[in-house]
């Protein structure tokens, strides 16, 4: 039970992937030979498929909150991030 003032935390952000490296490779591989537009579409379809599998709106909203916060936090730290610099 949650107490007043508590924020329910239904989204599992603890390690949960059985084979994380295999998953990551498959995710990148999903985009092989796709144009940027096709990759965007594939990502969007993947999100919709997974969202339906999860089903619970509270979990999805929390994931979306994390995703948006992550982008905004990074934008605050590194206004002109250059991906090539990390290579």
């Amino acid at each position, binding site marked *: 039970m949650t107490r007043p003032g508590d924020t329910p935390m239904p989204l599992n952000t603890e390690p949960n992937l059985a084979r994380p490296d295999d998953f990551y490779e498959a995710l990148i591989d999903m985009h092989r030979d796709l144009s940027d537009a096709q990759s965007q*579409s594939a990502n*969007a379809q993947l*999100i*919709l*498929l997974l969202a*339906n599998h999860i089903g619970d709106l509270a979990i999805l909203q929390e994931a979306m909150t994390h995703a948006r916060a992550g982008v905004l936090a990074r934008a605050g730290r590194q206004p002109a991030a250059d991906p090539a610099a990390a290579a």
Partner: protein
Amino acid sequence: MTETNYQTQRFAYQPCAEQRAPQPGAGAHAVHPVAVIGAGPVGLAAAIDLAQQGVPVVLLDDDCTLSVGSRAICFAKRTLDIFDRLGCGARMVDKGVSWNVGKIFFDEELVYSFDLLPEAGHARPAFINLQQYYVEGYLVERAAELPGIAIRWQHRVAGLAQDGDAVTLDVETPDGRYALRARYVVVADGARSPVRQCMGLESKGRTFRDRFLIADVKMSAPFPSERWFWFDPPFNRNQSVLLHRQPDDVWRIDFQLGWDADPELEKQPERVIPRIHALLGEDAAFTLEWVSVYTFSCQRMDRFRHGRVLFAGDAAHRVSPFGARGANSGVQDAENLAWKLALVLAGHAPDALLDSYAGEREFAADENIRHSTRATDFITPKTPVSRVFRDAALSLARDHAFARRLVNSGRLSVPAVLHGSVLNTADDADAWGAPPFAGFMVPGAPCADAPVREGGRDTWLLPQLGNRFALLLFVGPAGLPPAMLDALRALAAGPVPLALVCVATPADAAQGPVLPPGASLLEDTQGWLARRYDGRPGTAYLLRPDQHVCARWRAFEPARVQAALRRALGWPEGAGAAAEAAA
């Protein structure tokens, strides 16, 4: 017999009593109980409903014609149920094109189709398509059959003032101006609502930066009676198209144009005709009936009630056309208001009952606007990423059922469930805290129909409920015990009309159950009524005159029914019967 041409019909201006008689001073003329402004579908429905409730109505319209050209075409099942109660539903359905099936296309291919009325056991189809001028024409003819409705064509309301007793309308006619007094005024004069403007009131919201071309074309075509919606088809790239069949071989085609389109240019036949050929094929033979380019808004007034003035239909709220929620929700406004006005005017209910009109229909308008706005955002994505998700949902929809629930070409009009209305009495929880009923007939829900047999005749539930309060009682083979019969007799003898409608299985009905005097007995021939209302012997539903559920119980207790009835009439909690008698 030739059919009336409602598009060219003209209604003669006639002077009225207020103009003819000299007006030496105030009080020379009777105060009308209700004046309705605007003889469109909403104003006409309100006037007919009021007249059927026994309230005389003056209906004022600034024009002398019915709807011209392309306007509302889709009338939903709930609206047809209301038209049935108003006495002209059959005519609408006979003339209209009935449809239940919609198809969604993306690019060149069919993605999926849907059936809006997948269940049997309904008198009316999910929708009919019928040009607005037929709807108005049939309503005008129905109004003419009723005593107590005076339609005054070319009587334009130019001003309005209200005091504690009545509203005074300043009415302009070809013969000059006169003053009309009415205790209440229903304003149903359309989206631009001159009356709303002259009262200095606003309807506020969002206007969408997009343009649509409507072409109503006449042709003999092999298309079925279905709603076809294309996203991004080859014949209108990056935009949507809607094709819909109307009576008289007229087809509604709605092309999305985008915000940058020139509305004057796009209306020209030399621009419109090639678009239609691209859709129908180069060989298609058709004639243009009506062409217009429109933009739309989703907006509403902050409050639908201003003292004795009540706003309804587009005057009070506007939506985009996707979902057919304009005219349908307006007719529902009218029926929500009519019985309340009748009971307040008769002194059976307090003025506060009219506040519930505003509260319930503002709630319904918000729901309609929310659906309409979401559909518009799907049809017209506002950002590149919104477009990516839209197309992703469409791509998935062909093979995956879940994605079909995301595709939004307009969530087609269903009536609002009036959750949280002050007129509702909440369900009791059972001994374990669980809700005592399954199904959709919660307090505030519009009544679902069901096939029944009454007096040996096959008919439907809704016509048996009529336009007064009704107590729907599920009974077993023995019927009701004597104590309950006395209590029901007392309830039915109260000042507010209450119909007693009993329901039994055909087998139980054959046993001759004991019923209260004056009650009707419906045989639930196919079990739809018991299923839809989760009914079993002992179950009781209190239903409003507009056929919404106010309260329900597993066991009939007269005091609780009486309390729920008082609540549904807008009386304050705990006020004694004396207050009711004094009103």
